[in-house]
């Protein structure tokens, strides 16, 4: 069997650019400084649900408003996770485990408070009609929740009329639809025209293996998204006032 030293034929660029610091070391520099808050943020980072709740309880007992902890502690911890994910220091399972811990924490804070917590905005997430592959939607949903959005998850294989009805009812800031199967792409067209017919002009962010930018950009509301990690950034940009044309300019890859 032929075997050779591969150094002249391929380069493992991932190893070349690997950070010298561990994620934990980087995270340490990013956590909030207040010791109570830091404990909560850190346990979100570590994905330790019990520790999150314990830390929150302790902080609330010290007199801090439970709802304020959602942004200041839980979201702060999650932001560290997101930052490290963007840097390639954390991986999807890390984000998912942290998000789960954060969501538990949010529930706890809500229970401890009488006031209503305002999310950053509502987003509808679904897999197009005819497609039951939902791992992409799962990832997007978790990333959005981890970024403070209230996600209405319609599930997979969702009929067009149901997507439109939900958009009318929930008044989301955007929709996120995924598709893995090429033959389901037509559903995007229908969603687009039915929303327009109902005067609902929110961006419909589309991604998934079967989706191409050229196809999506044919529809007035379509915003193509190649990377699940971009979806929360698109949502943030909407909050910052970007319209569909500007979203396309900013997030279109090709």
């Amino acid at each position, binding site marked *: 069997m032929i075997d050779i030293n591969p150094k002249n034929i391929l380069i493992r660029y991932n190893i070349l650019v690997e950070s010298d610091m561990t994620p934990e070391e980087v995270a340490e520099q990013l956590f909030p400084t207040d010791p109570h808050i830091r404990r909560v943020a850190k346990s979100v980072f570590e994905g330790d649900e019990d520790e999150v709740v314990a830390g929150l309880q302790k902080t609330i007992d010290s007199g801090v408003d439970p709802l304020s902890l959602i942004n200041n502690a839980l979201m702060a911890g999650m932001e560290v996770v997101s930052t490290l994910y963007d840097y390639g220091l954390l991986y999807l399972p890390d984000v*998912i485990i942290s998000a789960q811990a954060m969501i538990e924490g949010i529930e706890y804070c809500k229970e401890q408070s009488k006031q209503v917590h305002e999310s950053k905005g509502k987003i509808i997430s679904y897999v197009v009609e005819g497609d039951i592959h939902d791992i992409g939607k799962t990832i997007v949903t978790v990333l959005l929740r981890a970024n403070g959005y209230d996600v209405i998850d319609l599930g997979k294989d969702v009929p067009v009329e149901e997507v439109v009805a939900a958009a009318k009812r929930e008044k989301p800031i955007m929709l996120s639809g995924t598709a893995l199967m090429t033959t389901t792409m037509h559903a995007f067209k229908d969603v687009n025209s039915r929303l327009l017919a109902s005067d609902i002009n929110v961006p419909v962010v589309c991604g998934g293996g079967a989706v191409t930018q050229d196809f999506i950009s044919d529809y007035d509301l379509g915003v193509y998204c190649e990377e699940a990690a971009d979806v929360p950034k698109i949502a943030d940009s909407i909050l910052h006032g970007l319209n569909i044309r500007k979203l396309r300019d900013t997030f279109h890859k090709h």
Partner: protein
Amino acid sequence: MSVKRYSSMEYDNFEDLLFGHSKYPVKTGLDLEIGAGYTTAEVNYAPRPDAAENKAKLVNEYERITRDIMERMVQVGFPSVVLETEHVQQMTHNPEWGADIATAQKAIMEEYHDEYGIKCALRHTVGDVRGDRESIDLRGDAYSRILESFEQVASSGADMLSIESLGGKEVFDHSILRNDMRGVIFSVGILGALDVEYIWKDICSIAKKNKVVPAGDTACAQANTAMFVAGGLLDFKLSHSVASVVRAISASRSLAAYEAGAIGPGKDCGYENNIIKAITGYPISQEGKGSTCAHSDLMGNMAMQCCDLWSNESVEYRGDFGGTTVQCWGETLSYDCSMMNTALEAGVGKTLRDVLMVSDRYRDPQAFILSYDNAYRIGEIITAHPDDLYLRGKEAGIKACELIESGSEGFLALSKFEKATIKKAQNDLKSLDEDMESFICNCLDTYSSEVETFNASNYGL
């Protein structure tokens, strides 16, 4: 269980694994023999989105696709070709659509075969439509529709039957996003294998009745999902090492189709087919550098090392400067096959195989474990545990970890992150239950509550 599990390797030595050669070649279609000393392109295609509006339009689309491919093959002088029609859902939902399309395609292929003598065959891959919005129902009405679809295409001109089965996907998706190796073993090694076995018994009897080939399955919904989410060298979504472990386990799942009677060639996207071929001696289809139209991967050359069919996975039918996309990619694939066939004729097949293999061997942990020598070693572990789906999956996973670790002492560079995850995966695997009974029992507890769509009765559990 009634099937006979593999307890030994059909190949005595990994050195005998070679493209275009299989121990049990498959005769099919119009004078084609797969794995009998030559490789053949397997051209794949997706109709344009609006071609599926009605039956007439869709039949017409496939006729054009078929004629385009056959015409280009004779224009450039290629001796053989395989066409794979992966059903769009309308075709499986309406079994007579699939039948009409198979009839139409086969008529054109016969025309070319009559005029030019070109060897060819048609694979139909029925869609696994057993899930819907609310739930997954693997053994109910949708399943009957799948079998009806197989029956109809088998009697209408399809030469080879395949499916990309979904069994185990619900628990797998949940587990892989949580680095949960227990769930991976349970979903791929147990649930997946049980489902594959169940449906392939039925497919094989339909194939037998219609005198066509029950070709094989793939762990696309599991191992390829992990591989694609893991992505390129600079994607940091999933550990590439963990994706490799999933691949090793998936061989045990795909093998179940052959244990139920399939005889190859296995589906193009089953990268685990390298292991399957070593175990069963059946021919395989593979995809790699000729399928960049459909996806990027880290073993574009290696995928050729022991392929019998060479595929482009899928390309949307459309015009390009050089012809239609199926003509462009079909020609590229066929030139690759011509290169392999020339090497075989010239007696330097194994040299070319090694060049293809070693060009990717150290590109990624998954490429490393699928190099034909390592693929063979994983096959050995699987056949060492013939009567225990649990053990053979778990041991395959552990073997993949060991191979990667030992590789990293040589030329296989691993990042610190990959080193840590492979260590963790190995520990997780080793600390799982001792025996299948208790493992299944514990998993049923966990995943029945954690995974909404998981229903044990789908698997006869």
